[in-house]
């Protein structure tokens, strides 16, 4: 092993320069040239400043807003500086009581009967705690409440949700999804159209 000291150090030095400096910096340069908005965090900037990243969910609770998924981040939900899932196991009693509470809350909030099944994504915490999306079904459930709170027609809310919805890739891969932040910014009229980098 003694004779490996010099080549090992030289190799580590060369790799550090090549793969630790040249590679990430070249990638940064090219990515910033090709996709400046996406490579910088997909930030929505309006007149009064940066309002969020279309890829990082925000907490919403008000009746006027589309409410996203539960978030397990600490100390507050959707704490972007510390992504985390709940890590609760499938038979955990803690998880069971959390989900029962959320289902009951969702039924009350949206004015649903007590036997309506609630979309799974609306009552389970995401893996990152920052999931920016909802399933179309979970969003559709909230249309009449949002329309009432904003005194607009349900159809106008539906059309906003449709504009904030992305389909499966090639109709095959992934899931259709509504971007909660984009939908709420559209509802508030902060932005007139979904950002191009969404």
């Amino acid at each position, binding site marked *: 092993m*003694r004779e*490996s000291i010099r080549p*090992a150090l030289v*190799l*580590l030095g*060369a*790799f550090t320069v090549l*793969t*630790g400096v040249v*590679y*990430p910096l*070249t*990638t*940064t340069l090219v*990515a*910033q040239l090709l*996709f400046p908005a*996406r490579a*910088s*965090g*997909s930030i929505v900037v309006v007149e009064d400043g*940066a*309002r969020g*990243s*279309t*890829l*990082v969910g925000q*907490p919403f*609770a008000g009746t006027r807003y589309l409410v996203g998924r539960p978030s397990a981040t600490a100390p*507050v939900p959707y704490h*972007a*500086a*510390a*992504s985390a*899932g709940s*890590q*609760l196991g*499938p038979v955990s009693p803690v998880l*069971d009581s959390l*989900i029962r509470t959320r289902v009951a809350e969702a*039924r009350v909030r949206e004015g649903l009967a007590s036997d309506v099944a*609630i979309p*799974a*994504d609306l*009552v*389970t915490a*995401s*893996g*990152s705690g920052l999931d920016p999306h909802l399933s*179309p*079904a979970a969003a559709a459930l909230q249309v009449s409440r949002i329309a009432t709170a904003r005194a607009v027609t349900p159809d106008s809310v539906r059309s906003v949700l449709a504009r904030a919805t*992305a389909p499966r*890739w090639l109709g*095959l*891969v*992934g*899931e259709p*999804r509504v971007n909660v932040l984009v939908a*709420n910014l559209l509802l*508030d009229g902060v932005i007139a159209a979904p950002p191009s980098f969404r």
Partner: protein
Amino acid sequence: MTTHALAEFAVVVASVLLLALPLGTWIARVMEPGVRPLPLARVERAAWRLLRTTPEDDMHWSRYAGHILGLSVAAVLLLYALQRLQGVLPLGAGMPSVPPLLAFNTAVSFVTNTNWQAYAGEATLGLLVPMVGLTVQNFLSAAVGLAVLAALVRGLVRREASGVGNLWVDLVRGTLYVLLPLSFIIALLLAGQGVPQTLRATRTVTLVEPLAGTDTTVSTQTIPLGPVASQVAIKQLGTNGGGYYNANSAHPLENPTPFSNLVQVVSILLIPAALCLAFGRLVRAPRQGWALLTAMVVIYVGSTLPTLAAEQAGTPQLRSAGVELAASPTQPGGNMEGKEVRFGIAGSAIWATATTAASNGSVNAMHDSFTPLGGLFPMWLMQLGEVVFGGVGSGLYGMLVFALLAVFLAGLMVGRTPEYLGKKVEARDIKLAALVVLIPSAWVLLGTAVSLHVQGGRAGIFNAGPHGFSEVLYALSSAANNNGSAFGGLGANSAWYNTVLALAMWMGRFWIIVPVLALAGSFGGKRAVPPGAGTFPTDGPTFVLLLVATVLLVGALTFLPALALGPIVEQMQMIVGGAS
């Protein structure tokens, strides 16, 4: 299981196989002396001069192994120092230095190609350590895997030779011609989907609806950025798996879209799959490579389908709580706890078995929250020794060891000295092969047993009951087989787990590399024997079947009792609890 899930799975498998064809051919050319593209060839020759070596300096297996150990010790020291000095070095983004045990665990984790995450990226590391520390080891550890494989293949091909190749040349070639160009392409594809690639560390935004807390109101959100795409590209291609963010590829900035998810999951399996085909070319018998790849695909597909079914079915607990479990065109249904909407059930389950079949260990959903059976298959895939695709290089050299065991078993059945690729497999070779299988298994089982008997081990358990046992078993399985994924509830950043898991990672890596290189030396020194009437052909369906059976049997016999105490009991618990 839905039609959509099957279609998405078919897209993943087909993409891997289609891309593996040209890549396998290319890797085979890179592993042999030959013509290189000019600008890179110049860099290669410059590297030889710096290293004062040439391909003609052929190394004995023991020298090759010694250099790997020396290099790895130096790499651990360097990465440890970088983390310990983060607070005083530039580009630290205000983060303090990493505490000693965590820095030690993370250094071993990245040098051994495990990338176990005891650290939480965005809360522990600034820009410097991920860039010039973690990313570099992602490349280097993958290159070491490729090099060891190249040495083993040379051993199988050469006759009465004393050397197995030149480590330094192998490391430079693998990185320059395979890992770097592929990473650059994948990094740009990911940046185009929204994975950050910038030198800015954070961006603060104003929340649309301020969050009213009990005593304070939160009105801003600080979004961690950085050179993420370049690290994520090699994290997947090099079967490393260590995330830029704590939530790894479940984080919407690390993996923003269904397409980025497809790119990443294909990147996880791509090089290990291509290596099988490269192997076939190098031994001048492409069918030998296809046989190994077929065995891998069979086990991967066979364990993904039940995982998909279990996650889509969800749990009786969810159903009785009033949750919709059926998938429809407008919702994923199923067990969505710990999963992201953009990937749904299909994208998460397909990833879970891909990342554990390959020794990648990145996650796009939280395995700790999977259903009992949905968590069992990923755990078992690691326990099989990371030979189903496995790590870059390490998967195939592990699978070749199983191939030796398979021909040995076949030889026992007919009472004839086993042969593989025209070389006799003798007693010493089988002893070395047995070591390769036994060492990680022993670490997994003994490590789990001891962890459950000491306070430090039990203190880390998050979920109660059999699921808590699974958390510990999963952690040891992951570390000793160099995977790196976790049942994340386990409090792994503790003195006990940082130490035990670091040791498991080190042993699981180098106590396999050394016997594998010894095998390379042993085979290289042998004469070739012409195939006779009693030679068991190792490129047909019978061999594939025997190989799959060997891998599964060894895995089942070793780990079934332990799995019975964890996921299997939990499955019963789920059924009984859901009925009450």
